[in-house]
């Protein structure tokens, strides 16, 4: 189902949760709303679900399949909502939790007991919890609870799945497993899914598109690779993974910091402007000898070998921290020790000039 929100704002007292948000979500898409706490992502999800009403405004709209749903209460929107803390009915068995959405239907639409049983059992199979029907939520692990919550939401055959930080309360390993499982489920059921998360890795890994939100606004919308490799704002590059920030100055179409130069894609920026140069730890080469005029001298302060790549912390002459990821082979080749002097050179950098965002 395609969903569109237009010019949505939401304030809670003096706090602005959403500021004039417009977004179109395509049918069958898995889209992530990604942002830090307080960025408005959960509020946007709740507005779509109908749990929050947007601030009244003549041009604000929430459309499901092109139809305005402003007057449709939550229960009529056919959305499957999954909460961060599961919100399972704790006094009901797993079976009854999943059957709930069917049992509360008006009598004329309520399926009979046999149909309900069949439905619940097929959902239990889907979430790989066959034989758990008679258990109570407190007898399940966090990951199992969240799967039950998902099955409960799916029982009403929703047109759209809304997941509010569904894996936020789970530990890293379970989270990763569930994430992959969710992606498989989304493809299998062919639904439209909106996932709220503050975990950039999660968003980049499972989504078709990522909506990066910050301070009640949308910063960027795009495919994971697009937002990761072509961030449109300082916030996005900073939020999506580790990044080194260097302060520099514009000179003849280049950003200059110490004796390093980074070419600008927009040569019209006047000289003398302050520039911020963002470089990911992966996009830095490291050598023991100076590589001409585009490298920075630094000393090694920390070497972390735990991981596929080694993570180095360096200190520049101004005592700024520079983080560099290098392959294990390269690390061995260089034979680096703590305190060694090295020269680093960015292979790829993004330059942001205040008011001249490139």
């Amino acid at each position, binding site marked *: 189902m395609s969903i569109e929100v237009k010019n949505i704002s939401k304030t809670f007292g003096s706090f602005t*949760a959403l500021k004039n948000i417009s977004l179109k979500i395509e049918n069958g898409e898995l889209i992530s709303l990604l942002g830090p*706490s*307080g*960025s*408005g*992502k*959960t*509020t946007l999800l709740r507005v779509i*679900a109908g*749990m929050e009403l947007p601030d009244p405004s003549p041009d604000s709209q929430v459309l499901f399949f092109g139809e305005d749903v402003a007057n449709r*209460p*939550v*229960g*009529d929107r056919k*959305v*499957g*909502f999954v*909460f*961060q*803390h*599961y*919100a*399972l*009915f*704790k*006094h009901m068995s797993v079976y009854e939790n999943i059957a*709930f*959405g069917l049992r*509360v*239907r008006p009598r004329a639409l309520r399926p009979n007991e046999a149909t309900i049983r069949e439905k619940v059992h097929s959902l239990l199979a889907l979430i790989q919890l066959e034989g758990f029907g008679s258990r109570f939520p*407190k007898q399940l692990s966090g990951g199992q609870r969240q799967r039950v*919550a998902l099955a*409960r*939401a799916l*029982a*009403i055959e929703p047109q759209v799945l809304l997941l509010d*930080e569904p894996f*936020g*309360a789970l530990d890293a390993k379970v989270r990763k497993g569930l994430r992959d499982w969710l992606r498989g489920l989304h493809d299998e059921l062919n639904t439209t899914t909106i996932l709220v998360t*503050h975990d950039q890795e999660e968003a980049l890994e499972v989504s078709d598109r990522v909506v990066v939100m910050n301070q009640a606004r949308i910063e960027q919308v795009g495919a994971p690779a697009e937002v990761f490799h072509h961030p449109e704002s300082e916030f996005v590059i900073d939020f999506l993974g580790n990044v080194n920030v260097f302060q520099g100055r514009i000179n003849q179409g280049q950003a200059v910091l110490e004796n390093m130069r980074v070419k600008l894609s927009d040569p019209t920026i006047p000289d003398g402007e302050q520039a911020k140069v963002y470089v990911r730890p992966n996009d830095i080469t490291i050598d023991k000898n100076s590589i001409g005029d585009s490298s920075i001298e630094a000393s090694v302060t920390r070497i972390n070998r735990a991981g596929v790549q080694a993570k180095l912390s360096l200190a520049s002459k101004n005592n700024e921290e520079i983080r560099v990821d290098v392959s294990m082979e390269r690390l061995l080749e260089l034979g680096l020790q703590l305190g060694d002097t090295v020269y680093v050179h960015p292979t790829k950098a993004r330059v942001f000039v205040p008011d001249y965002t490139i």
Partner: protein
Amino acid sequence: MSETTNRLRSGQQDPMWVRYLAITISLAFTSLMLVLPLCVVFWEALRKGVWVYFAAFQDRNAIQAIYMTCLAAGIAVPLNLVFGIAASWAIAKFSFRGKGFLIALIDLPFAISPVISGLVYILVFGMQGWLGKWLEGYGIQIIFAVPGIVLATIFVTFPFVARELIPLMEEQGSEEEWAAISLGASGWQTFWRVTLPNIKWGVLYGVLLCNARAMGEFGAVSVVSSNIRGGTNTLPLHIDALHADYNSVAAFSMASILALLGVVTLIGKTLLERKLVNESSQSLESTATGDAI
């Protein structure tokens, strides 16, 4: 090593004699002030034998007093139950203007003397009061009659259910309700199937305390009842009247009912408290990890 642990232990704890003194004082005080009087009630009631004890219940006035007490509690408790659930629902699940004021108002009966509440009702509904004459025109008597007693009882037992449920419901939040509504449940279905089962032990606890107070209330009821024997006397008032007549066996027999009610309430309360800890610890468990927006 054992030396260090010993030293640590003695460092954390007070000297032996302080502990024993504290325990002795509290036990002695509880026995003297609470347990002893309770025993005396039953001792005095049964002093002249079981037959005399039961004879006290056959008195017409006694039966009327028990009836009046049950009637007052029977009306006041359900009303306060409905009110308490409604108020705590409103306070815990919605935010609205005047919420703090409402919470303060609910506590009012705890803060002021019951006698004053009785007097206020007389002022409003009494023959010389604001509404007394007007009500009399319709043949309605409130003061010195059953309605007055019920009103006074409602007033003093007003906060019990609400006070118990507000923190419980606030702690449980409204996510389960939202889940039910998103699954298509109506407000009514959500209340019966989700909210009420989650607070049932809290409700029972509140009702138990509310009932104990409703049956035991003396001050407010005394002002509005005018002590008509065999008429508007409730059990506590009847006991007071018997005692004034130096009929101590009958007085203590009646008192033993209230004392028994107290003991039953206490046991019920202890059992329910255990259930309540479960109820809230479960909800804590599910909300303990983070609260990112």
